[in-house]
């Protein structure tokens, strides 16, 4: 980016180049890209909170390649002391650490509880100019959106958590609720970013919105739907901009790329560029009714098969919807830096090399 362009952009930032920025989950798939882009934007004081000292080499390389002061803190957001240590003197927090996995309690702890602890630590200080919370497009309720409608920030959030049976989604919804509550009750300046399916080198599986291979054979479920993907570099820049641009406190923005491929296109390109494999197309109405049957069986059998396949999840992930990034663009001036053609090329190359 040209220096002149960058200087012009800086006029509209809420933080200066030398302000201290905290990035939680900094050695994660998106986190390390966020660090890279912050360095590229010229920030000189970054604090990276990492859960474990393992898998730090890539992040260390990124830090070493710049002259900025990059501090690594090993800690757990479930520890209030670690939160205090991490948040001390930070002007802006990019909160990317999150709970993943199948346990509701685990996802709640690592997403919602961790966020609450971090926010409590933030409230003890006076420096924070914004709390950027990374959520997910998964929090929306698919069943309450009509097929073909635009999924945007006004769409309803999932409320029936046990029917949806998606622990990650639950953790993110509760995380969002906590951020909103702290915004309302404590005047916390925040922005919530809800990215779509983030892909790119580092992600070792086909996006779940395309299909699943749970049963030993790949079931293509996305059909001709556009899939709400966002390349990792684009996602990281969307997060960075949402964190630093002035005048958008209290906003929630969805983040997806411009040129979204259809699920069928993505799968075809994957097979052509990575490796061919057998897949079966399952039309949405068929899969929806299979999910209904699975739910019935799960209930009848008292959970012998847990309701991992259910209509709510099916609608949220595989119903035909359109996606909008209009608000993100209008508020932050973001545009995807890597178009789909180039992004998919890099991703497929990574996958072809066995995820290295």
């Amino acid at each position, binding site marked *: 980016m040209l220096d002149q362009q960058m200087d012009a952009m800086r006029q509209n930032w809420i933080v200066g180049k030398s302000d201290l920025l905290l990035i939680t989950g900094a050695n994660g798939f998106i986190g390390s890209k966020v660090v890279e882009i912050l360095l590229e934007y010229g920030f000189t004081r970054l604090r990276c909170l990492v*859960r*474990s000292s*393992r898998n730090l080499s890539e992040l260390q390389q990124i830090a070493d390649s710049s002259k900025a002061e990059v501090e690594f803190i*090993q800690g*757990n957001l479930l*520890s209030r002391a670690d939160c205090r240590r991490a948040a001390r003197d930070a002007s802006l927090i990019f909160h990317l650490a999150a709970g993943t*996995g*199948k*346990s*509701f*309690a*685990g996802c*709640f*702890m690592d997403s*919602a*509880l961790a966020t*609450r602890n971090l926010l409590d630590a933030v409230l003890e200080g006076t420096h924070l100019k914004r709390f950027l919370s990374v959520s997910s497009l998964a929090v929306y309720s698919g069943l309450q959106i009509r097929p073909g409608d635009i999924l945007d920030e006004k769409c309803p959030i999932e409320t029936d*958590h*046990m029917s949806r049976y998606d622990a990650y989604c*639950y953790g993110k919804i*509760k995380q969002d609720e906590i951020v909103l509550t702290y915004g309302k009750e404590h005047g916390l300046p925040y922005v919530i970013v809800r990215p779509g399916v983030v892909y790119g080198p580092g992600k070792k599986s086909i996006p779940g919105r395309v299909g699943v291979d749970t049963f030993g054979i790949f079931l293509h479920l996305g059909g001709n739907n556009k899939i709400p993907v966002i390349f990792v570099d684009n996602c990281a820049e969307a997060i960075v901009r949402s964190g630093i641009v002035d005048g958008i406190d209290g906003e929630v923005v969805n983040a997806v790329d411009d040129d979204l491929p259809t699920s069928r296109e993505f799968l075809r390109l994957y097979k052509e560029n990575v490796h061919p494999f057998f897949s079966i197309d399952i039309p949405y109405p068929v899969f929806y009714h299979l999910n209904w049957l699975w739910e019935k069986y799960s209930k*009848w*059998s*008292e*959970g*012998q098969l847990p309701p991992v396949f259910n209509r709510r999840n099916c609608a949220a992930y595989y119903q035909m919807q359109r996606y909008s990034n209009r608000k993100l663009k209008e508020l932050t001036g973001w545009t995807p830096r890597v178009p789909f053609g180039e992004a998919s090329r890099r991703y497929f190359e990574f996958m072809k090399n066995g995820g290295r």
Partner: protein
Amino acid sequence: MIRVGIIGCGKVADKHIGQILRIQGCKIVGVCDQEELMAAQVAERFGIKSCFNDARDLLSACRPDVIHITTPPQSHYDLARQCLDAGCHVYVEKPFTLYSNEAEELVAIAEKTNKKVTVGHETQFMPVARDMRRLINDGYLGGPPVHMESIYCYDFADERYAKALLGDRQHWVRSLPGGLLHNIIDHGIGKIVEYLQGDEVTVVAHGFTSRFLETIGEHGIIDELRVIISDSKRITAYFTFSSQISPALHQFRVYGAKNSLVADHEHQTLLKVPGKTYKSYLNQFIPPFSNAKNYFDNGCRNIRRFLRKELHAESGMYFLMSLFYRSVAENTGVPIPYRDIVLTARIMENIFGQIGCQSPICAV
């Protein structure tokens, strides 16, 4: 109606609640966690009316008959004691307590107050374990076991278990007297204890850190353990714990004077190994087919169980809870004898002492 309370609203609590909701004649009246948000999320998801952040409030406000303690083991003893003092029956997640003297005390209090306690050794109540118990009680072995082998593996490749521990230097498992082993091996030790006789046993243990853990800088976790146990009646047992054996086996072999049995908890198969021999080459022809039929029968039995919705992942927990609740409702014997609970704790403590964990070495 049995009124049930839960103390500790982490990952294990979800499993407990899932099974409690399947049992007729009981109702969850309240949940508690030191962290109020954890209690609230469980209450919200399962539609439980009352949630607390102090066990005393749960006990006084909800007056539960049974309490499930699903907190980290460091708090088991104090909480169980508090619940027994409040007049509750107590189901404690494994490991029962940190030290054997605490286990003995809790059992003594339960007996004195005429309340019941049990421990979450649910693998001993999985279908295959129940089948094995029935055959042994019916005399299939031709007497008491001569020798037993319990193999319990832990897969560090399985992120559900390993990521939380290896990714967190402050994880509560690390501060247990027996470390990682303390949180797991009672599943395997408990199976052996059930068939040992008397309370006097000899234990020889050898433990070490695997090369895998050393290469990632985890020098403090002992994840390989070999143990020899023998009782006063000369019944012997080997216990193996490993994080490196592949596949991650969960097997229990019982060798008798007449026949033997091999239970595979992973696949829920029970292989009968008859002592019968055949003449000449028939000894190489007939037993393999007999074993094949044995496995075929096991497969059919598992399918039948699945169709009858009896093959739940947590069916052992469901069965153990059902037996415990019945023992509470009808004031009958507890599903796991107190002698087994205490002896398991004593053997574990002895093992940790021998392999250099922090716990004191106790004479068993």
